[in-house]
């Protein structure tokens, strides 16, 4: 019994680790597609581009970056609504 148990356990651990690794790689890959344009947007707005690295935080990271850009005063200036 112990042999079978450890055999099955090792399988589950192996598969679990693989799935976690794939999820991590997938998350970073997708985050890169968000980080690059967001970095440029942050720089053009006058913020440090590193704020875009918040995309690496799962679930809420993107919202934090958007909130900074949406509700913070842009150091490089903003367009007023009447400037089109």
């Amino acid at each position, binding site marked *: 019994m112990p042999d079978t148990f450890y055999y099955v356990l090792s399988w589950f651990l192996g598969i679990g680790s693989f799935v976690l690794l794939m999820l991590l790689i997938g998350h970073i890959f997708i985050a890169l597609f968000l980080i690059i*344009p967001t970095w440029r*947007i942050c720089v053009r707005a006058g913020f440090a581009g590193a704020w875009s690295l918040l995309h690496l935080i799962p679930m809420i990271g993107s919202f934090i970056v*958007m909130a900074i850009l*949406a*509700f913070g005063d842009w150091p490089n200036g903003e*367009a007023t609504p009447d*400037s089109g």
Partner: protein
Amino acid sequence: MGTGIAALLGLVGLSSAFALVALVLAAWMAWRIVEKAGLPGWTGLGAVLLTLTAVGTIVPLVLLWIFAFMRWPRDAAAVTRAAAAPAGSGPAAGTARAPAAPSALPPPPKALADARGWTLTGKLADGAAVSLSFDASSSAWMLTGAPAAQPTDLSVPDPSVGWPHARLMVAGARLGLADLGSAGGTLIDGARLLPEHGPRDITSVRTIRLGGVELTLSRL
């Protein structure tokens, strides 16, 4: 069994509620962000709402890239404003909202107007010398690789210089430079100037580089 189904439905309902709140929040923030860049707010809202459609997140992702690298109306308005600004006017005038300036400081002491001009000197790739002089008689001067067609054109006849390449703005004793997106690029004392940076004050700058031509800035 019934409890399990109820728990499952509750979980789905809760997730949907969170998703709805997140969607509304993202749409609102996207509206504000694109408005600050000078675009209509509904474009940001629409880009976020596209995630509800069959195209999923691909199109909003593409739109995010386009938004990041496109020319923003905010920058175009800043360049136009700087070019049209009369001598002596500050950069805060116009439509774009500049960072708040301290209001408690007393006005600067009045001084006699500095009527001296500027000169840009350097060497072209073929070894020929170039020397360009300009002053406050015009508020805007165009640096171009083409032969001078207007009195305010400053010709730098080099293949690496764009047609036009950059705009010089004179406001009293201050001098500004805006890159117009030429492929050769513009450097101010070695620092890259991009079109989206808008006009930059180069009054105390020593050298500017247009494409492959380095020009030394000095007062006449």
